[in-house]
């Protein structure tokens, strides 16, 4: 079979050549026939006759060969059918015409009318068959696409569309060839690059480049153009699933359609288009101009959502009540709970615009707004007070700059400009984190800058492309390096999967259509880049931040994932209108918050979902998601309601600086300082008091873990809680001449752990002179139990050693360690160093950009809340405080607790339970347990 087939195949393939004979001969015959009308030019007659005879014969042969081609090479489809019928008709007509002509000639009749009519019909048939044939070879669009108003259907051409379109043709137009090639390359990218690209060359095969594809791999030629059956690649993708040589080995096998596409591509000669493969959808950089739909709704956001709701057949639910709204508004703008009085006032406020007014007044609370939103920005810009990298100086905070930016409500474009082209204090963002030693090329600090700007600000994943051409976007290695090169001092050589490839990157922004980054120095380039990035044409920048704010306030972005802004929005118009509105308002972040929060849309009831998956696939917006209090919100709420959770901050934007240092006995093992062992240590410091009248002498002291304080031999104070700053007035104990402070400190625990004395004394003479004594390296200490008189002036401490300054790392800064009066403010969680309690509740360690936190509760969280010593201690402290405040009023206590915690009074049933638990003579244990139970309630932990 095989042997004889080739002849038929060859003859079949002569069809495209042969068809030109009947077309040419018959059409010219008809033309000449027209010239002979009315007996003119009789000389042409003989020629016309031969043309018709040969035309008819060639038409028959062409039709026959066409039929061969079709049956030998499996063409099918309507187009082929129609072409076939037209072809056969042509042959039949041509034959008939030839016979009629012959008969007419034989009869020597001069009546050519029948023949002429036949010839005319034949030429019509030829034209139809020819046109259909041309459609087959050049594409159905071939003729029409050059017309002025023609729309191409190139966009969204899936492989199946392509298959039906091209599968029926024998030779393809250049355009079709390119299309087919790109489709197949896209398929390779999705299915094969993982193992067969420049990055990874399994079996020495690369399918990402033209050379690679046609060079083949260890198993020989991957592609034999025109011959799928001889192509190794085709053989491997068509093997049964359990065959050991089947490809791909990772992921799903190709489906029939995909296989057919590859086959077609090889059959058609495996053309390689040099065009860049854009296989992933890309969002437009510019914002669309959105006209607000006509709607009954007043608020622009609601107008857009109304339109969306109509399309999805959703009725507007009733917006939430005042207590729910005020809780949301407080938590979203300042991160704190509304006090009962505030709720009460708000409920009774008759102002119809009271919700807008509340938003305004909360946004006006700059300090609390800043200390709440700081966490959002710290996550986004991966800024933290501690973490890897600081130890070797490879990292810099931007806390001061960020705090100030939020306090002054710096416009977003200005913030971006300063992050990219740093001003004092904002250098840390593009500096990245530098680890000691050799790091992977894709983690050099220049690349980190590119990745972080990409992710945080532009919502594009540069991480993948910084190692190899991305598998999840159209970004290439070259683009990623080009972006990184902007931040590089020296020329940057491209590394593919950490191996240099001998190419130097050309500095270029990811989106060159916005502008070309120029400049010899980094500073110039950064300035240039920052200008390019913040221009309004870069709608993507503003869309990204707008979407993040929406996510933050409603629990889910308009576009998800938040860091992949090429993904589809659930409503494009809403997305781009909001972003445009943000730009129109001069990139004012508070405007954006107000715009969203003042809408009915924000004020819809929270929507419950059974499974987290239900919020991911086929998501339809119906209202905000139920949100959980963040680690910071939860911590601050506890501090607010019962007792400060954190005594100290890592970043102290407003407080004064103390000269006192936290000191302890220097503990040494094998010549190395080690953590202080448990046990008692003794400290001394002598000083001189002038013989002058003293107005006052104040002491601040905090010791980890416990202390007794002596002044000139007399014990004047003791304490066992370093988080508590003890404040003393000691002028009575001072005398002119030498005075001595002595501290007996104790480190608790079973193993070595941080310990330290923090002490400050300020003596004010009537003359106005002052004396300040602070704990520092001039203090002396010993670990041996000294003689009884060790606290007195006369004791000789020559054998004692200088203390060691243990820094603030383990304790942070106590805001209360101040001679000024403390106004009851507590350390906001956003200013506190990462702490195990917050970590467990989901505060990320900010080594990498984090744009959404875990939302579900975990066992470790539950364990921490249930028996963590840290939380338990705070509950205990709080219980003691509350019992004092509401000594004989258990009912009021219960009511206040519910008001402060849940913003409502307990129901009679709840009250009953709580009162029973408290009993007649409330003890701290019972109250502690009530606190615990209420703080764990879903009603408390969720923002509904």
């Amino acid at each position, binding site marked *: 079979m095989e042997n004889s087939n080739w002849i038929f195949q060859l003859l079949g393939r002569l069809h495209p050549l042969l068809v030109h004979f009947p077309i040419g001969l018959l059409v010219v015959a008809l033309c000449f026939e027209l010239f002979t009308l009315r007996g003119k030019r009789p000389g042409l007659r003989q020629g016309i006759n031969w043309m018709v005879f040969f035309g008819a014969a060639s038409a028959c042969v062409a039709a026959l060969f066409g039929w061969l081609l079709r049956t030998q090479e499996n063409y099918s489809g309507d187009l082929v059918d129609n072409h076939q019928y037209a072809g056969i008709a042509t042959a039949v007509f041509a034959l008939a015409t030839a016979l009629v002509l012959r008969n007419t000639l034989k009869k020597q009749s001069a009546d050519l009318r029948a023949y002429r009519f036949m010839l005319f019909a034949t030429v019509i048939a030829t034209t139809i068959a020819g046109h259909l044939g041309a459609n087959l070879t050049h594409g159905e669009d071939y003729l029409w696409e050059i017309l002025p108003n023609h729309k191409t259907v190139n966009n969204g051409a899936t492989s199946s569309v392509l298959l039906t379109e091209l599968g029926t043709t024998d030779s393809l137009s250049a355009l079709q060839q390119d299309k087919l090639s790109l489709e197949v390359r896209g398929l390779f990218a999705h299915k094969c690059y*993982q193992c067969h690209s420049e990055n990874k060359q399994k079996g020495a095969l690369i399918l990402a480049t033209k050379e690679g594809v046609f060079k083949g791999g260890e198993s020989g030629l991957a592609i034999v153009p025109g011959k799928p059956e001889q192509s190794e690649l085709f053989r491997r993708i068509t093997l049964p699933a359990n065959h050991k040589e089947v490809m791909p080995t990772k992921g799903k096998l190709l489906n029939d359609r995909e296989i057919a596409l590859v086959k077609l591509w090889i059959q058609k000669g495996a053309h390689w288009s040099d065009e860049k493969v854009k296989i992933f959808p890309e969002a437009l950089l510019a914002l669309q101009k959105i006209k607000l739909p006509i709607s009954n709704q007043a608020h622009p956001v609601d107008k857009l959502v109304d339109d969306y709701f109509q399309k999805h057949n959703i009725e507007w639910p009733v917006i939430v009540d005042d207590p729910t709204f005020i809780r949301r508004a407080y938590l979203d703008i300042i991160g704190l709970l509304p006090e009962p009085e505030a709720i009460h006032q708000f409920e009774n406020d008759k102002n119809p615009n009271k919700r807008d007014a509340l938003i305004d007044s909360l946004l006006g609370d700059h300090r609390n707004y800043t200390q709440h939103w700081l966490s959002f920005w710290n996550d986004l810009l991966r800024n933290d007070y501690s973490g*890897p990298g600081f130890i070797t100086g490879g990292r810099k905070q931007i806390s001061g700059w960020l705090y100030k930016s939020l306090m002054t409500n710096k416009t977003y474009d200005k913030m971006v400009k300063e992050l990219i082209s740093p001003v004092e204090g904002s250098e840390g963002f593009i500096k990245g984190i530098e680890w000691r030693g050799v790091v992977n090329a894709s983690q050099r600090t220049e690349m980190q800058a590119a990745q972080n700007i990409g992710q945080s600000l532009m919502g594009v994943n540069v991480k993948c492309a*910084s190692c190899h051409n991305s598998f999840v976007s159209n970004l290439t290695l070259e683009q990623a390096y080009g972006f990184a090169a902007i931040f590089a001092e020296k020329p940057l050589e491209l590394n593919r999967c950490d191996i240099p490839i001998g190419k130097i990157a050309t500095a270029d922004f990811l989106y060159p259509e916005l502008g070309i980054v120029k400049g010899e120095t980094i500073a110039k380039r950064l300035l240039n880049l920052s200008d390019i990035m913040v221009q309004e044409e870069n709608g993507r920048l503003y869309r990204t931040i707008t979407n993040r704010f929406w996510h933050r306030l409603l629990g889910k972005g308009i576009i998800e994932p938040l860091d992949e802004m090429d993904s589809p929005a659930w409503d494009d118009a809403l997305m781009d209108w909001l972003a445009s509105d943000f730009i129109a308002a001069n990139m004012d972040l508070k405007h954006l918050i107000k715009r969203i929060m003042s809408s009915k849309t924000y004020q819809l009831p929270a929507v419950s979902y059974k499974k*987290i998956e239900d919020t991911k696939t086929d998501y339809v917006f119906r209202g905000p998601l139920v949100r*959980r209090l963040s680690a910071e919100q939860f911590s601050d709420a506890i501090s607010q309601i019962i007792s400060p959770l954190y005594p100290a901050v890592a970043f102290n934007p407003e407080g004064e600086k103390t000269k006192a240092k936290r000191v302890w006995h220097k503990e040494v093992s094998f010549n190395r300082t080690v953590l202080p062992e448990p046990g008692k240590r003794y400290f001394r410091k002598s000083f001189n008091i002038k013989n002058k009248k003293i107005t006052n002498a104040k002491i601040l002291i905090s010791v980890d873990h416990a202390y007794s304080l002596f002044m000139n031999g007399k014990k004047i104070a003791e304490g066992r809680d370093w988080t508590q700053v003890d404040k003393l007035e000691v002028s009575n104990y001072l005398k002119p001449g030498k005075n001595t402070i002595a501290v007996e400190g104790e480190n608790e625990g079973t193993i070595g752990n941080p310990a330290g004395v923090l002490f400050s004394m300020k003596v004010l003479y009537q003359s106005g002179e002052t004396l300040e004594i602070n704990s520092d390296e001039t203090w002396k200490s010993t670990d041996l139990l000294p003689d009884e008189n060790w606290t007195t002036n006369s004791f000789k401490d020559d054998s004692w050693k200088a203390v060691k300054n243990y820094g603030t790392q383990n304790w942070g800064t106590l805001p209360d360690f101040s001679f000024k009066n403390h106004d009851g403010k507590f350390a906001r969680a956003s200013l506190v160093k990462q702490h195990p309690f917050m970590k467990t509740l989901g505060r990320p360690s900010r080594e990498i950009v984090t744009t959404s936190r*875990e939302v579900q509760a975990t*066992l470790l969280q*539950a364990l921490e809340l249930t*028996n963590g010593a840290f939380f338990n201690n705070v509950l205990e402290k709080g219980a003691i405080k509350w019992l004092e405040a509401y000594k004989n009023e258990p009912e009021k206590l219960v009511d206040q607790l519910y008001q402060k915690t849940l913003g409502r009074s307990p129901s009679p049933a709840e009250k009953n339970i709580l009162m029973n638990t408290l009993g007649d003579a409330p003890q701290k244990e019972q109250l502690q347990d009530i606190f615990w139970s209420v703080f764990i309630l879903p009603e408390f932990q969720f923002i509904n």
Partner: protein
Amino acid sequence: MQAQNSRRDFIKKMTAASIAASATTLPMAGFLSSCSPSIAKIAASADTVILLWMAGGMAHTETFDPKAFVPFEKRLDMKRVLSTFPKKPTVVDGLEFSEGLQSIGSVMDKGAIIRSYKAADLGHILHTRHQYHWHTCYEPPQSVQAPHIGAWIAKELGPANPVIPPFIAMGQRFTMGESEELKAFHSAGFLGTEYGPFLIPDPAGGLESVRPPQGMSLKRFEARYKLYKTLANKHKIMEQGSDYQRESLMRSMEQSYRLLNSPEAKVFDLSQEPKEVYDTYNTGRFGLGCLMAKRLAMNGGRFISVSTEYEPFIGWDTHDNGHARVKKMKALIDRPVAQLIKDLDETGHLDRTLVILATEFSRDAVMEGRPEEQVKDQVSRQPDVIDNEKHYGMHRHFTDGSSILMWGGGIKKGLVYGKTADERPCTSIENTVVIDQVHQSIYHALGIPPQTHYEIEGRPFYTTPDGHGKPILDLFGKSLT
């Protein structure tokens, strides 16, 4: 006897555990799409892993791979010194350990030694970077947070006993130098905190971590939980349609209540051990960690690590006084490690428990880094010819050869795998082993397929980089002796 009974109990509970685990591993499931199910499962030879971590860089030539011994003397040329201890025989013919490790030597017929581990070349040494690499199999920094091997195992296998956290890390505090870097890898990374380590810095106080808060009686603890449940059910919110967030909260509270209220919490109570057993183990925190690891392994622990603790220049990180300090470190580990193996063996648990002893890299007296890639010296005060005993020892960081010990869980008994050169530089010269092989060998023993991965930010993230690691199959199989 009691162990027998409780064992049966645990098997029952484990069945319940797997059901519970499937219900509780939800958190990140929607976010991560595992591609593992399509990969055929492999048969497991171990259910539990104990990692005994020698933090700070333990010199192979001073411990499990001794070379020529040169005693201390005045005017000693340190270039001549390969080991500062004499060799001692072990129970395995031809296998010798350095003096001070005879107890561990006596249980080597129950396990194997890899003598050819080669650490990554990360340039200018930072211990925590190598430790990060050892524990996650990825070189830091990474653009996504890499999970600790214990977190991978917790994620893939879940708890063996529903009330014992599947990943427990003992012995390390996070309050000193490089603590932030230590935290960076004591993490479940992108797998989510659910799979993160349950930290017990001081095993002696292990019970504190799992018993109701101090001062709270069991009765009060139960009453408190009941109060919470009653209040929670009183409110209308709980009557509204189910919600994954509220449910995950209620469920996790329920679980923690069960753990804290369960008799298994006693597993964490070392005072339950007879005094002589306690004393045998008690060489310090590390020894007690081994004792706790034993108790956990016998009662459904999944991944348990015990660290000698890393603190810069302390422990195995001998920048000076190497000889004297290594002597102390050996005394710290020798008895409890050997006892742990014996106890697990005698109770039959060693068959299904894989015990590993390892360190981030080795040390040398002369070379910093490795022969082809020497790096910035960090021990500059080290003279070549020494008079002072504090200079006698392996004070530089050496990354080209180191030992790993393994017992149980299907590991060949009495096997010596790979070797290092007998002359300086004492590099790996046969069957060199790198980290992804170590990880895949552990996963292999646990039946976790080598291609296990999750998609994170569009990137398939494998247990070993690109899924390339191959288990060392030679380690597994029937005993050699």
